[in-house]
């Protein structure tokens, strides 16, 4: 990190200070984050922003309780002061402590790790990026009924040092890139938005944005937005539902990814985001879904937006079975929550920058592929609804009762995709919904979708996570049309 004091000496000073003041454990993270966003709205560059942030955070355990403090001023003197602040805060925590923090063991690692990229997006000329978005915008505005367009690119670069009082010292560098675009058709009071369905984010360089080839599908997206203006409203009733990858990624995120966070299960987020129906007594026995449902948490997948080498507790990335043949079989864990269970950590602790504590966050939560081609899946469906792209989402605080809206749907009649349906909504209860999953498309249809906006914690933290999925069919799903 170019604008840092000697990072190793700084970390040693901070950790020594914390230990001298009574910390039984301490870690420090120095984080530099650069981000760039370019937003075109209906032909005009409305947002062009490049921001950078730099600082450090210190986490300590004193008297078996946690404290944390942070500062943007990465200097030796400030390091000592912040370590002292963290210790004082932990002592205050210890005055209301009903149980002691027990960390699962982890082998302290020393090393340096980068994700891979071909083209650093921050090195790509601004006019090239704006030019690509303008071309995309023009393609989306192919009809006068398209009144609004949104074309966005976003890039992030992270450089981070993690050091712990146990001897870990890990340097990591990561680049993430992505782009998305949509067209909105408006006629009177009817407003219909359609995204280009391949818009996405990944742990990769600018080459990922180029590979999306968004422009190839721009006109189709625009025409689908227009088609929805006068399309029939999605019918109410119980239907067979096929979800495309983009919508299914959110379904996995909300109904599987969040309830397997062990801090939620332990009530540590209960006043804010809520808890989980996947309580410890269900582990290994609860029928989460049908026997074709296999879900993993896997931070090792190359390119996934939830991939990394080590989490923010210095635990190596790994793959964990979450649902195996339909049976609930694993959690996302931290050293603290795993320690409480006598397990080793699953390596899912990540912080949204230097000024946030690590929380249990999703990595890449993946529904493993089945053996259907997409064409076979449609042909095998006598009557149903095929729904695409996320429009709206809501789920209860134990992650059971959900209602999601998609941008668009199509009727499936006699094994063929038919007319467009507008304002589709579907709802259900998580275990019943996954229990009615009867077909999953194969590896050719499977891809990891990047979700760069997963919110959790207080103060709010945004995590970048991934979901590997392929189009999937569910029976007996309640649908309706929003109005």
């Amino acid at each position, binding site marked *: 990190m170019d604008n840092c004091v000697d990072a190793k000496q700084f970390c040693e000073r901070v950790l020594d200070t914390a230990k001298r003041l009574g910390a039984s454990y301490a870690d420090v993270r120095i984080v530099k984050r650069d981000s760039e966003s370019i937003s075109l709205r209906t032909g005009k560059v409305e947002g062009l922003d490049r921001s950078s942030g730099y600082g450090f955070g210190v986490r300590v355990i004193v008297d078996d309780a946690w404290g944390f403090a942070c500062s943007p001023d990465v200097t030796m003197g400030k390091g000592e002061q912040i370590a002292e602040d963290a210790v004082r805060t932990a002592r205050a925590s210890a005055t209301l402590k009903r149980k002691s923090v027990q960390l699962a063991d982890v082998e302290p690692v020393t090393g340096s790790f980068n994700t891979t990229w071909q083209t650093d997006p921050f090195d790509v000329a601004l006019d090239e990026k704006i030019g690509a978005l303008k071309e995309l915008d023009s393609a989306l505005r192919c009809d006068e009924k398209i009144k609004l367009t949104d074309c966005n690119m976003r890039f992030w670069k992270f450089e981070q040092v993690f050091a712990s009082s146990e001897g870990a010292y890990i340097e990591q560098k990561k680049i993430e890139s992505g782009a998305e675009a949509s067209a909105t058709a408006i006629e009177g009071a009817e407003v219909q938005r359609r995204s280009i369905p391949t818009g996405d984010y990944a742990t990769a360089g600018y080459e990922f944005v180029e590979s999306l080839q968004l422009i190839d599908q721009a006109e189709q997206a625009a025409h689908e937005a227009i088609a929805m203006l006068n399309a029939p409203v999605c019918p109410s009733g119980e239907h067979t539902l096929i979800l495309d990858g983009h919508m299914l990624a959110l379904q996995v995120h909300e109904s599987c990814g969040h309830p397997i966070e062990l801090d939620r299960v332990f009530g540590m987020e209960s*006043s804010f985001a809520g808890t989980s129906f996947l309580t410890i007594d269900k582990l290994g026995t609860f029928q989460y879904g049908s026997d074709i449902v296999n879900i993993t948490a896997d931070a090792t997948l190359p390119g996934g937006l939830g991939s990394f080498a080590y989490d923010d507790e210095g635990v190596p990335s790994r793959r964990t079975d979450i649902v195996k043949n339909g049976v609930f079989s694993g959690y996302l864990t931290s050293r603290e929550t795993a320690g409480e269970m006598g397990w080793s950590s699953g390596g899912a602790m990540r912080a949204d920058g230097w000024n946030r504590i690590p929380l249990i966050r999703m990595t890449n939560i993946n529904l493993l592929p089945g053996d259907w081609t997409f064409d076979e899946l449609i042909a095998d469906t006598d009557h149903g609804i095929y729904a695409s792209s996320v429009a709206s989402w809501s789920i209860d605080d134990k992650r059971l009762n959900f209602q999601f809206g998609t941008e668009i749907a199509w009727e499936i009649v006699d094994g063929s995709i038919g007319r467009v349906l507008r304002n589709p909504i579907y709802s259900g209860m998580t275990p019943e919904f996954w229990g009615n999953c009867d077909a999953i498309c194969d590896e050719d249809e499977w891809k990891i979708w990047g979700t760069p906006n997963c919110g959790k914690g207080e103060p709010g933290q945004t995590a970048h996570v991934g979901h590997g999925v392929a189009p999937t069919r569910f029976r007996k799903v309640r649908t309706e049309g929003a109005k």
Partner: protein
Amino acid sequence: MKPDKLLDVALNHSSADQTEVALYTGKSALTRFANSTIHQNMLFEGQSLRIRAVFGKKVASGSTNRLDESGVIELADRVVEMARLQDENKDFISLPKPMNPVQDAQGFCQSTADSSPEQRANQVRALVSEADKTGGSAAGSYTVQTGEHFIKNTLGVDSYYSGTYANLLTVITGPDGGFGYAACTSSDVGDIDGRQIGAQAAVLARDSANPIGIEPGEYECILMPYAVSDMINMLVWMGFGAKEYQEGRSWVCGKLGQKVVSESISLWDDGLDPRTIISPFDSEGIARQRVDLIKNGAANAVLYDSYTAHLEGKQSTGHAPRGRGHNLIMAPGEASIDDMVASTKRGVLVTRLHYTNIAHQMSASFTGMTRDGTFLIEDGRIIRPVKNMRFTQSITQALSDTQMVGSELKLEDGVLAPALKLGKFSFSSATQF
């Protein structure tokens, strides 16, 4: 470097036609607790400098938290270069000029700024002791913030404000599985009473134990102020920003001046109202105007930043970015909660909403779950707790049948809201708890 000098360095260094600089410095603390234990306890020091540079109709922005001279100059150079390379936005007219003077606002409280980790732990212990009395378990958070905001631009805008914020909230889980929520927000930590908040939530947790399921459907509904504030934030988000209005995506489109809800409903945004967390100017340094959004049931106005205001030849109302309301106030009525319950034949009392989201923007329809205390009312009495339910409901339709407005206002999530008794509210399904 002192803030004034830092701002001047940035403004003087920029070669853009127009430049805006915004500086924030602050300290905050957050004590989170769960299972009646403090499990996360954090102190934050923060600072950030944002620069917006304009060449003609080319605009770019950037930020940094490196506030030494070289960090400021590096940011100014970067943003200026980006603006030069930028495409023209033909709709952009100018950064805002100074308009109404920013009024002196008393939103800073020294005792809040001086609050210590030990004081916060004491309040949380007092709260938890109330949960202990009922055999319950407390979770929640105690936030304390102190911040200074400086905004200057080369057209003469020069705004400064220093304010504080404190919020203590809890969800208490009772021994029999009931849930209760209570919270308090103020600029003064002296207003925060952990014991009182704990007692309120503990009673609610006790009363909401062992809920039964009821058939989803349309019910008379009493929304407590916590629930009303969530609903009002959604209503404003879906309709009262000038950007959405100009683009034809707002439920308010074509309805300004028309009756959209019951005449008993009036709603406005006022950044200077001391009952809210004062916010005297927006992110462009423009004084927040009081804007009457709904006046006696009629949609009255939308919220502008300088960009959207210039598009209509108007002045900003001080609601950058993107026309968002931060100090929303709903006019109180005369009813008590007891009056509302007594007037209800068969209905549902909702304490709080969860995970609300847009269902259909043009009809102001939203969805979400009830949470932390939902009760069945029959023949003017609260009969028993019920399992949480999902609702999907047009907010304007619900407010059109407002039967009573509460006399007491509560500040929650930036909204000063009363309880409401609504003639109809539509619940579509139930959950298991």
